[in-house]
């Protein structure tokens, strides 16, 4: 579906796309939309591209090291010239924050049927959670609305995974605490670590699972919180995804061979987590 007129919302998208500031999902949705031939969006993007393209002129020029030219000419002597090859590790075109690839024309991607099936399934599941979000209408057949819906569903799913509603969380916690042998552990900020509000762990030995409700300072980009069992050697209890406000809620199955649990702790690790905790410990609680 093509737009007839440039609105503020359209300009927001085009401007942020030109800056590379859209998320991967939003960038894909925008590219799909452009592929449909929307002239309004194409023109807005071209105009913002022009602006962003010359913004670099505002930075103060600086003399490169004298040997850079020689290094460059030596480098290219070994390079295939002029071929339009995608850069290593960034095979996809497009400008999203997840990739930040060079600005080559967006290429046609593989069929998106798997994502759509999942998205529809997720939509059905979401209907059961009242009041969480207003879905704009039912699924319609045009590609643009499908693309928008995908964006919404994925965002909502992220929202759900990262920060379920208070009500849903409370229900889960209550349900766990009803089991005999359930305990609660509060993980508090440790000296030497940046302060967080802390985390609550609800453990059920009967069900061999725990629920974690974390309220940390937001994780910087490229870093993620990780939960640890304090057994004689710390063992990972998994990553703790947190939202932009640092809140996270996850459930973890406790391995049966965990041994004596002295407590739990959360550290900040590089994306993907670590096999051993990186100091400092952010929050910790003992049993």
């Amino acid at each position, binding site marked *: 579906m093509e737009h007839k007129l440039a609105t*503020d919302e359209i*300009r*927001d998208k085009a*401007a*942020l796309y*030109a*800056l*590379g*500031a859209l*998320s991967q999902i939003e960038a894909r949705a925008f590219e799909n939309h452009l592929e449909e031939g929307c002239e309004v969006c194409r023109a807005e993007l*071209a*105009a*913002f*591209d*022009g*602006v*962003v*393209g*010359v*913004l*670099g*002129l*505002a*930075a*103060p*020029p*600086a*003399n*490169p*090291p004298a040997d*850079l*030219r020689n*290094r*460059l*000419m030596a*480098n*290219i*002597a070994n*390079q*295939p*010239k*002029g*071929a*339009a*090859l995608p*850069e290593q590790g960034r095979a996809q075109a497009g400008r999203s*924050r997840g990739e*930040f*690839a*060079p*600005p*080559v*024309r967006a290429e046609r991607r593989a069929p998106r049927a798997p994502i759509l099936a999942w998205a529809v399934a997720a939509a059905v599941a979401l209907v059961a959670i009242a009041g969480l979000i207003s879905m704009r209408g039912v699924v319609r057949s045009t590609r643009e609305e499908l693309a928008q819906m995908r964006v919404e569903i994925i965002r909502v799913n992220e929202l759900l995974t990262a920060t379920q509603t208070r009500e849903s969380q409370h229900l889960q916690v209550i349900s766990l605490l009803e089991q005999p042998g359930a305990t609660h552990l509060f993980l508090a900020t440790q000296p030497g670590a940046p302060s967080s509000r802390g985390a609550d762990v609800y453990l059920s030995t009967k069900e061999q699972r725990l629920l974690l409700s974390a309220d940390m300072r*937001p994780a*910087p*980009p*490229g*870093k993620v919180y990780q939960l640890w069992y304090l057994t004689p050697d710390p063992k990972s209890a998994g990553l703790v995804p947190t939202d*932009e406000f640092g809140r996270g809620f996850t459930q973890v199955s406790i391995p049966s061979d965990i041994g004596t649990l002295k407590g739990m702790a959360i550290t900040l690790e590089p994306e993907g987590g670590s096999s051993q905790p990186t100091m400092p410990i952010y929050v910790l609680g003992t049993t």
Partner: protein
Amino acid sequence: MGSSKSSLEPSAKDMDLRRLITNLAAGDESALSELYNRSGRVAFGLVLRVVGDPAVAEEVTLDVYTQVWRQARTYDSSRGTPLAWLLTIARTRAIDRLRSGKQERQRSEPLDSADTFKASSGDPEESSLLSEQQRIVRGALAELSPDQREVIELAYYQGLSQTEIASQLGQPLGTVKTRTRLGLMKLRETLGPLAQGLYGA
């Protein structure tokens, strides 16, 4: 502003750069060397502004011109001037490097806008055309409100998302989006022909 160079015709320099890119794409190494002569200080300056560390900036700049060499055939003049294309590659690679490397640049930088973006003359070491363009861009940025300039700089030089910017500034996300859009719209107007690639780069 309003110099005699406000003609919308591509300048001789612009044709020069386009010709350089074409020759480069055909494998002419001297064209790359010449492009580097003309644009190296601007590209390196931009990369340095983003990554902060001169040694890292050197590596990134090497990658930038190597990429230009490899991808010159993909340059499409209907999408912007050669210089804009080059600067976009430079910024993209610099931000890639910034985000994959150390985190220390994530602290908020003291904005040097007051100095850097004074609507003063451009860099005297550059060619007069480039210097004129620098002056125009810096002048346009100086005309933005500090709020608008701030969010654009954070997005442009640090590659922060709108959410990260909102978090860093303690502002609502909607406010950041509005400021970004308004700022870029204003730049579109004030940069005019330069942003449309008609001024010659």
